[in-house]
């Protein structure tokens, strides 16, 4: 029995009069793809914010490989191995794809104080260009390396964010609706990438409304509604669960038909 990489216990978050999250428990193992689903406004993005550090939690604890991280600022958590994409893509529009992906290296480099050595090294040096080019190849955007992000179509930008996560070699990747606006081909490529990341031992937390994708990729799903966890289990179990059906699924199919 392996210990969870990421463990949330009783996480609560209030914004003024709104109880956004209430006693959320969640545990994810290395190599797992963990779906996080629920209706709009259920608190999925808030939960991601709590894990990455954008939102400070009011109660509960968050452990990464056993260490409590809920009091740490965003960049410290990133250095410990938490990477994310954003629901509304956040990239430096005027920088090239290569430069944007290189930014992701900050997490690993600055995790050690010695990371400041070599910040004046050229971007073409092997310690920077090799991991970046590898991530660009893995995400299938190597031909766009020198393009400015502002000139890319929307779907490609998702992959720039993903490549930026890859170079950080994170333990946990949080993907906030990564399939939005993707073509079918791009969606396939995304699935392949998520599986590869999991196979390499990364815990992938996937927030997604594309239930077909969730059903195909996820080992476990957590369903939240009004800030509370109403279900945790396999996609097949979620499919049968009364509460999940009532709150979110309706007649949608989550698990593959037997």
């Amino acid at each position, binding site marked *: 029995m392996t210990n969870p990489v990421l463990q949330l216990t009783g996480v609560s978050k209030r914004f003024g009069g709104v109880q956004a999250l209430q006693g959320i428990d969640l545990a994810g193992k290395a190599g797992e793809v963990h779906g996080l689903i629920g209706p709009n406004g259920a608190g999925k993005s808030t939960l991601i914010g709590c894990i990455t550090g954008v939102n400070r939690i009011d109660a509960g604890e968050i452990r990464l490989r056993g260490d409590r991280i809920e009091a740490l600022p965003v960049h410290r958590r990133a250095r410990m191995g938490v990477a994310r994409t954003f629901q509304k893509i956040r990239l430096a529009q005027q920088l090239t794809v290569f430069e944007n992906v290189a930014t992701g290296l900050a997490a690993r480099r600055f995790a050690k104080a010695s990371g400041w050595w070599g910040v*004046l090294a050229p971007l073409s040096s092997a310690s920077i260009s090799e991991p970046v080019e590898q991530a660009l190849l893995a995400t299938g955007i190597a031909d766009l390396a020198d393009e400015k992000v502002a000139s890319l179509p929307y779907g490609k930008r998702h992959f720039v964010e993903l490549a930026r996560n890859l170079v950080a070699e994170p333990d946990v990747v949080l993907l906030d609706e990564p399939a939005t606006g993707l073509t079918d081909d791009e969606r396939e490529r995304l699935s392949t990438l998520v599986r590869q990341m999991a196979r390499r031992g990364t815990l992938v937390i996937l927030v997604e409304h594309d239930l077909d994708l969730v059903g195909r990729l996820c080992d476990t799903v957590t369903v939240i509604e009004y800030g509370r966890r109403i279900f945790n289990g396999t996609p097949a179990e979620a499919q049968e669960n009364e509460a999940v059906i009532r709150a979110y699924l309706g007649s949608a199919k989550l698990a593959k038909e037997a």
Partner: protein
Amino acid sequence: MSDASIWLIRILFVAFLAAIPFMVDAYWLNMAILALIYSLVVYSITVLTGFTGLLSFGQAGFVGLGAYIYGVMSVKGVPPVAAAAWGIVLPTIVGFLLGLPAARLRGHYMAIGTLGFGVLVAQLLNNMVDVTRGPMGLLGIKSFGLDRVTWFYCVLALALVLLAALEYLDRRTFLGVVLKSVKYDEISASACGVGVFGVKLLAFSASAFLAGTCGVLLAAYMKFLTPDLFLSAESFRYLMMAVVGGVGSATGALVSTLILTGVPEALRAFGETNVRLLVYGLMVLFVLWFLPGGIGGLIDRLMAPRRKPRRTSASAPQAPKADTVPGRVS
């Protein structure tokens, strides 16, 4: 443009600058030296605003601090080199300390905070009469004993070395990418592991270092200081030079400083009237109108290298290959 022609243009540019002492009289040589010294404070805005996206309305404060630290110490008999070291180190420390509160502010709030600092320094210089002699001006500043042509080549060399260093930092280095990631999006930068606060402190200190150095050179060259030289209006003049240069381009900053220092002097042909300033103001407006990226943006467009495909792109498969994903195996 090919690499060879870009290098040719660079060499011609440096050769033109180096030939200035042979082409102009003492008055214009003096202007050229001052412009080159002022380029340092415009570089300080390049680092702070151009690279890191922080707006300062108080750069004249750091220049004044550097200038007066050098001036007062040198008048009191401290050797010029030691006085210069203090005049550079102390503003850098002040920049770091000012950064502690200022780096927590955003956008306009930071601009107003730094404006306050600039006003504070100007008032101190004016009112600490015992130390600075206030409006009477500080006389008798010792210098390095260089003649004017030597001064010119020294500050030219310094301006060009800094120019090369900043261009390298901006375009080629990981640090440049880190600084700019903060400028474009603090939230995504911190999610990538960039300590945004630390980067801002670094930018603040580096910027104060450059502005303080500018002040030291100014004091050592002019050998006479008054508080008027460091009023907030000066901060805005530096900002204007940076903006016309295209904030963020060190080359643009240097060219713009040379032009915007030279033009008002040349316009004295109109006589000492307001017409001169009107023409000057209109010129600046027109530059911003037709060159939104400033002079630096124009240079970039003209010198854009012919696009070379990246080494890996020719063989890059469109679909992801298996086992190409880097990751920790646990």
